[in-house]
């Protein structure tokens, strides 16, 4: 990973659901300690959980022992998360996706739409050294209101 700075934390997990749960709790713990609470915290944890779940399911293709690195940078006004894996093909969420209509009772297809609704930026990169990076940026509600 290339970014550095204050408040930077990192965690390596394996690509299975238990490990994904551990990572979610790790993110929640750190952003709570940094003062994120209520809706901002819930939205951030859910977006991260959805993104990581997609990486585990699609990029790692069900293999439970692929390493996934998570980088977390928390500032009072925003949270940046990078999910990095070495799968041949990464999870690259489409930029625009229509949510399934509630009345259609779809049994899937909600995840990417939720990520886009919950965070301010989603960016996928394929690095020169062959890794996939999914970048999420979540601004706090207060910082969004100040910017508008």
């Amino acid at each position: 990973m290339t970014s550095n700075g204050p408040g930077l934390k990192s965690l390596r997990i394996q690509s299975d659901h238990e490990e994904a749960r551990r990572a979610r709790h790790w993110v929640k713990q750190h952003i709570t300690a940094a003062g994120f609470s209520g809706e901002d915290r819930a939205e951030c944890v859910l977006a991260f959980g959805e993104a990581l779940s997609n990486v585990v399911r699609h990029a790692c293709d069900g293999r439970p022992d692929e390493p996934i690195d998570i980088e977390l940078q928390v500032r009072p006004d925003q949270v940046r998360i990078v999910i990095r894996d070495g799968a041949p093909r990464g999870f690259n969420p489409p930029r625009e996706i229509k949510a399934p209509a509630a009345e259609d009772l779809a049994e899937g297809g909600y995840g990417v739409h939720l990520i886009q609704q919950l965070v301010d930026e989603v960016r996928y990169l394929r690095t020169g050294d062959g890794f996939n990076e999914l970048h999420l940026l979540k601004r706090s509600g207060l910082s969004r209101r100040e910017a508008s």
Partner: protein
Amino acid sequence: MNIEIETKDGWTVFHLDGDLDSGSSAEMQSRFMKLLESGQNSFLVNLEKVNYLDSSGLAALVKLYKEVRTRGGSLALCAVQRDAMKIFQLTRLDKIFTIYPDAASAKAA
């Protein structure tokens, strides 16, 4: 996830405790389907102790809701916590599911 099943007064109540996510939704679905196939058809899913629910958990609930309806039964939810309610609101599925504040209200309805 810990799942306790209570059958009383014609209701089958699933008390879920833990995260309802891609790692736990299959087990919930499997236990639910066994009861549905055994002939029970009034279900309540108590989410009081579920603080995290993701799109996999949501998809599992939608699938069960459809299965129950196909058999002429009912499935309602209760005690959805604030963080978990977010996902119902964003997908507008809060307009589809009947959601009670708690188990007692559901049984009294």
